[in-house]
């Protein structure tokens, strides 16, 4: 899914983009950040840790494959742990057009692949604090973007862009994003709820250059209203290894990795 490619897995530094940055508008900055070049396919092991306000945690390990097929982006995930959901798999197809995502789930205990449909990109991704939109499915023109200021955060020179949702019913009234001026990789993002109160803070903890692409390998989303946190870490990242398109099928979901 585009999601994982952009914000989670790969946000890539395009060195050529640093040119004449002063002239950029908010919209252009976000456009560049959204459209950083990525690899054609990515393989990785994802560890998702959910932490609730009492400090209890749920840890899930997932093997995932993503491939960009032009107009469709396909991803498939296999649960490695916990043991009771091992081999559960999840497949997602995202379309460049307005068509909503197609999703399938395979439950090994049921031995059946089922389609699941979700009406909204603002659904939370696997019980985490990330919505599908947060993971990169948000369309550029769903918001109006405004460059607020330029400032330095954690030693990185950043653009600070405010994006206000055009749809008034959207779960976020606005977001504020800190984007690294040098590579257009996000550094931090604040999400404001319908009442314009701070809801969540996304912090990019680690970015690595893998096969020439800048990749976010560790990020953390904290819901400050619920005191709930999600950390996503990526390991064993391989880019452009030629994952076959046939990998993304119901048959493969049932067969497992």
């Amino acid at each position, binding site marked *: 899914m585009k999601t994982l490619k952009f914000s989670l897995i790969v946000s890539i530094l395009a060195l050529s983009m640093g040119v004449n940055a002063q002239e950029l508008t908010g919209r252009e900055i976000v456009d560049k950040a959204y459209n950083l070049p990525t690899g054609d396919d990515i393989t990785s092991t994802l560890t998702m840790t959910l932490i*609730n306000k*009492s400090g*209890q*945690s*749920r840890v899930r390990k997932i093997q995932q494959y993503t491939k960009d097929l032009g107009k469709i982006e396909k991803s498939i995930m296999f*649960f490695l742990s*916990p043991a*009771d*959901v091992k081999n*559960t798999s*999840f497949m997602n197809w995202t379309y460049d057009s307005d068509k909503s995502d197609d999703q*399938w*789930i395979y*439950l*090994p*205990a*049921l031995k*059946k692949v*089922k*389609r*699941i*449909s*979700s*009406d*909204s990109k603002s*659904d*939370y*991704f*696997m*019980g985490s604090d990330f919505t599908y939109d947060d993971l990169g499915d948000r369309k550029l023109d769903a918001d109006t973007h405004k460059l607020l200021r330029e400032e330095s955060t954690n030693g990185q020179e950043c653009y600070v862009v405010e994006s206000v949702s055009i749809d008034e*019913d959207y779960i976020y009234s606005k977001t504020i994003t800190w984007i690294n001026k040098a590579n257009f990789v996000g550094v931090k993002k604040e999400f404001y709820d*319908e*009442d314009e109160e701070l809801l969540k803070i996304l912090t990019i903890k680690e970015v690595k250059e893998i096969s020439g692409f800048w990749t976010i390998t560790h990020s953390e989303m904290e819901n400050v*209203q*619920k005191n709930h946190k999600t950390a996503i870490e990526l390991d064993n990242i391989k880019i452009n290894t030629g994952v076959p398109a046939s990998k993304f099928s119901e048959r493969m979901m049932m067969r497992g990795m």
Partner: protein
Amino acid sequence: MVSIKDGIIIALENKNGVFNTETLDTLKQLTKRFKKFEEIDKDDVTSLYTADNIIGTEDGMDVKSFYKRVPKSEEKLKQLRENVVNNEMVFGRLVSTDETVTVIIAEIGDDVFTQKFYNEILETAKASQTDDIKVYVAGRPIVEGTMALLGPADMKKMVPIVILVIFLVLFITLRSFKGTLITLGVVFLSTIWAFGLMATVGIPIYAVSTMIPVMLIAIGVADGIHLYSHLQVFINHYPNATKKEATIDMIKHLWKPVVMTSVTTAVGFISLLTSQVYPVKYFGIFTAFGVMMAMVFSLVFLPAGIMIFGLPKAKPIDKDEDKGGHSHSKLANSFAVWIIEHKYVSIVGTAVIVILSIIGMQKIWINSSFLEKFEKNSEIVLTDKFINEHFGGTSTLNLILDANGKKDVFKEPAVLKLVDKMQKDVDGQLQIVGNTFSLADYINRMNKVMNADEEEFNTIPDSKDMIAQYLLLYEMSGDPENLNKVVDYDYEKANITFQLKSDNSKAMDASLAIIKTYKDDFHKLGITMNYAGSGYKGLVFTDLILEGQIMSLILSLIIIVVLLSLMFKNTMIGLIGSVPIIITALISFGVMGFLDIPLNTTTALLSSIAIGIGIDYAVHFLEQYRHNATTTDNRMVAAQKTMAHSGRAIIYNAIVVIAGFLVLLFSVFPPNRELGALVSLNMFTSFVGTLTIMLVLLYMSKVYFKKKNIEK
């Protein structure tokens, strides 16, 4: 942790059905408005607008909200209606089965309920009303809030009338305007001091605190009546005495019984410290303080008042008239003689009353219902009834199952099957249980929709992995927050909610009885049971109060017998003196049993207070009798004199207090009516008991006359 909070229920009724743009929009706006309340967590507001719709499709499953944008077209409204009607997790729970009512449930913490918040809720609800849509507010916090407001508010209206009546009756009995004013002045001062001390030490005023002035009025006037009554008798005998002589005689004779009665009464109240409920403890301490203050003021201000304002008019006694006895009062003489000569009437009468009371007591039941304290046709009761008719129930009992630290227990099929069985058992056996809800409901629903919506799959699957995978699927597609209400993060604690259509103890006990039959089964699975919820809390609270009440009842009885024995240096007196109050308590409970008045926090509290107040009559009578015994060798002479003297004051005292409290029978708030009726009844039995059976026992025991052999 699984979060359990009390729910405020906001119900929207549209007689034309709720599936129309206007109602759905109102629901959405109100839901959003309640989410914005500072006192309410956003996630604790549930309505059709926030709920997940899990539905089975041909090739899979679909979880979505019922609506985000308010549907406008006929087609979309029809679709929404279909979704709701086909989802039993919502239909009957958030939307009534007759489709005319839908609810918002806003859960709030224990400590956020304030007057302001209460008003805001009501205003918000009212503001959303339209010609078609009626908005109701119910739920335990609202009931408690209304009661906390209504009780004291009603008392505020009633107290001045009570005072006025007491003033009038006091004036008629004392026949002295000055005396009436001073006596009431003592009561006011002691009340002010009691509340003043409360404010100084920073104790807030609870609903039960509003009973402090009522108690002080009932107790405080007694001192004044006895003092004035003595004064009157004295000047009637010695019309030429100066006010100084009269006052000195009054104090000399009465300081002892006044102190004794005040101490015994205060002890009765202090025994409330055994209660585990803080407002009741405070009530006990500060009323006791007020009683002691009333004593001080009676002994200081009353004599001072007489010195300043002068004596009441004397009605000199015609010494030559045949009084038919030894005292100045014909009536008292003949009454005392009659009582003693017909002593078996009193003894048999008392025995019969005691037996009847004990029979009546068997019928007493405890009621923790808050709602049943309101008028049957009051708005709050009608609203509650309305919601109970349409939904599962407004009172909740929560069963917390705890696997004691063992993770993932609530993914086990055996465990969930047992939970499911218990829910169906309780729901099926009891009419009063409108709804049950737990993790098992999610699993049943998921299993059904993942199996092409076949009803036969509306069960708990046999595989633990299957359950785990369903839960993962739910988390992936629904709002995982919803699961927090039924199970904790590590699947080691689960919350099962039983919704009851009544908050009375009978309903609660019946449900608990069935639930408890599952204790062993759960125990075998390593799971322990705990309870919570508004209904259960009410039950526990009442049990606590009652337990404390019974404790303090017994304790104050023992203390009073000991105190009386010490004060009169005679154990026999201690025992005889306690007879009227024991009878008072028995009759009080007996009457409640026969009249089907349940024991609740108000009525239980009163019974123990009755002891503290009832003893006063006995103390005055005994002290006077003891005094008279020193001047005569004849028991009948002592009895007649005591009757003429103390007996008169006791009757006046009883009349004044009973008249005052009968006023409360016109109160609009049922607990205050109960208070009025019970205090009146208790005063009546105490005074009758003192002047009849106690006198008989006193006479028969020959106490104070044993060493004197010169009997008539």
